[in-house]
């Protein structure tokens, strides 16, 4: 039998439909793969009993001809999603042991389509980080290694580092992620897989632990554009329980992901993304992507997004402000950790001091500062005004083009421990992903090639609001042209063994 963990999600669904194998078989194959790759620390909670029970039920449904879109496919769930009866800690000590009494809308949607949950995936604490080094459950290690023989452990990116590592290392057919400023797209680029953040409002945020509510959006990881589209198809949809969920029809994402024609499309290249100090390899892969789309018949247009350099500073006011407000709920009274104090205030202070990690504390404090009396207008309102200018930049660009092409991240994956000395250095990882987040636009990263060290580099496609179909179409065209087939060596050697 073919190695079931190396199938794409689309191939696996075909195989299940053809009765080539059962859901129990492909689920067990993934549970074994997870066991063999525990050193990567991608899963913080494995749920084999749930997985096998769901797989068995799926096989029964298939026997009766009642299969859903993802029926029997084993996937991983980012720990930020509340899953009923299964620890949902957002990888924070303050929520360690928290077992929700309810299911997030997105995971419920996945289960309604027959998806099988393998476990909960590691991430940066409360999704705050870009290297998966802020998790209270330890770092995630990327399955990729530099070719130089140094054997240094590399970051899978963050915040959805566990999701990206699991999909890249064949520990899940696909996975959920969340993206506030790049937390799906940057890890997808670092691990050589696809990741899509849809338009803000496309997926319900209900039951996803809140970080920055005006930016947080659920999305998916897959090893192909089609796989990410399939996952997103199941996840998306209107939810009355989320006041910012959009009441609109979900398009056929899969059909869009199978359309590899960009003939006559106008693709914008924003000149401000040619950042000073951009590594040569990133510049080259971007040019390669431009050439691919041009040779497929797209018209390449230079566009300007003049406020790009202000996106990151605006983000680092807005996101911490919303985070300080959202995280005020962790008071040690209703759920989560409680530390005793002399009085109630001291109990709050001790609980939060012990429960939150350093990066979360920094952001809570920055947020509290910019929202405090006397600073609110100067910082928070100012940042919201700049956010408007950034949105307007995109709106003018889309008068000239159908989608934008940029690098996903300013570098390939770096070693764990690098960029930790200065928070700003870590924040700069998201310089190309944050603008689309502030504008609420759909964005996707597609693997485009390997650098000289043998590490993946990704390209980002940014679309108009609600136009994930265009993003998927351009992504699928790039995927076909790039023909990216590289697999991390440790995964390949496992396959050979």
């Amino acid at each position, binding site marked *: 039998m073919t190695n079931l963990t190396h199938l794409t999600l689309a191939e696996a669904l075909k195989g299940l439909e053809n009765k080539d194998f059962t859901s129990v078989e492909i689920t067990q194959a993934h549970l074994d793969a997870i066991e063999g790759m525990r050193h990567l620390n991608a899963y913080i909670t494995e749920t084999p009993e749930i997985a096998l029970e769901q797989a068995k039920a799926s096989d029964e449904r298939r026997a009766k001809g009642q299969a859903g879109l993802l029926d029997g496919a084993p996937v991983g769930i980012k720990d930020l999603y509340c899953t009923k009866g299964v620890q949902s800690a957002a990888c924070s000590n303050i929520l360690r042991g928290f077992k929700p009494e309810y299911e997030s809308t997105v995971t419920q949607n996945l289960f309604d389509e027959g998806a099988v949950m393998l476990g909960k995936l590691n991430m940066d604490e409360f999704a705050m980080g870009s290297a998966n080094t802020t998790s209270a459950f330890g770092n995630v290690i990327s399955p990729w290694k530099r070719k130089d023989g140094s054997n240094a452990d590399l970051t899978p990116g963050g915040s959805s580092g566990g999701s990206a590592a699991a999909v890249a290392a064949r520990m899940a057919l696909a996975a959920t992620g969340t993206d506030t400023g790049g937390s799906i797209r940057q890890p997808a680029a670092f691990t050589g897989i696809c990741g899509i953040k849809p338009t803000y409002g496309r997926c319900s945020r209900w039951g996803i632990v809140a970080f920055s509510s005006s930016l947080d959006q659920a999305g998916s990881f897959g090893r192909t554009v089609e796989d990410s589209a399939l996952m997103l198809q199941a996840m998306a949809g209107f939810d009355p329980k989320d006041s*910012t969920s959009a009441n609109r029809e979900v398009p056929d994402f899969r059909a869009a992901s199978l359309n590899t024609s960009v003939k006559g499309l106008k693709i914008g290249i924003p000149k401000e993304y040619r950042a000073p100090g951009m590594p040569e390899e990133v510049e080259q892969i971007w040019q390669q992507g431009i050439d691919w789309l041009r040779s497929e018949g797209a018209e390449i247009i230079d566009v300007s997004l003049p406020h790009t350099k202000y996106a990151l*500073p605006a983000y680092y006011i807005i996101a911490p402000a919303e985070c300080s407000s959202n995280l005020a709920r962790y008071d040690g009274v*209703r759920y989560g950790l409680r530390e005793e104090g002399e009085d109630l205030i001291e109990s709050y202070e001790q609980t939060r001091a012990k429960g939150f990690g350093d990066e979360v504390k920094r952001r809570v404090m920055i947020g509290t500062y910019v929202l405090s009396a006397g600073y609110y207008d100067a910082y928070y309102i100012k940042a919201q005004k700049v956010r408007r200018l950034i949105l307007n930049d995109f709106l003018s660009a889309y008068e000239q083009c159908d989608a934008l092409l940029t690098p996903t991240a300013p570098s390939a994956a770096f070693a764990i421990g690098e960029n930790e000395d200065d928070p700003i250095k870590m924040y700069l990882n998201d310089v190309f992903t944050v603008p689309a987040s502030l504008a609420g636009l759909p964005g996707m990263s597609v693997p485009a090639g390997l650098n000289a060290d043998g590490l993946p580099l990704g390209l980002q496609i940014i679309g108009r609001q609600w136009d994930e179909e265009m993003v998927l179409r351009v992504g699928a065209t790039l995927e076909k042209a790039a023909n990216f087939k590289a697999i991390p060596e440790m995964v390949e050697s496992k396959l050979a063994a």
Partner: protein
Amino acid sequence: MDEATVRKVARLARLKVTDEEVSRLVPQLGNIMQFVEQLGELDTDNVEPLASVANIDLRLREDDVTDGGMADQVLANAPESMEDFFVVPKVVE
């Protein structure tokens, strides 16, 4: 950003900070604030702040009771509870 400001913000954020943390946070938070100061270069006098990209008016619904009667579930994750209540440290002397 100085030590007094860090302590004040920590108090507002209900975070206990040690002296060692304060001395570490002063330059870190200072650098972040210096980084975001760049926004001052932009003239935004006539720009409307953008709070949300959702473009959705908040929906209204009938004022009906749609949920409830699940004290057990509400209290299931409480650090301390008694009967149908959360238990908190004494707040009134």
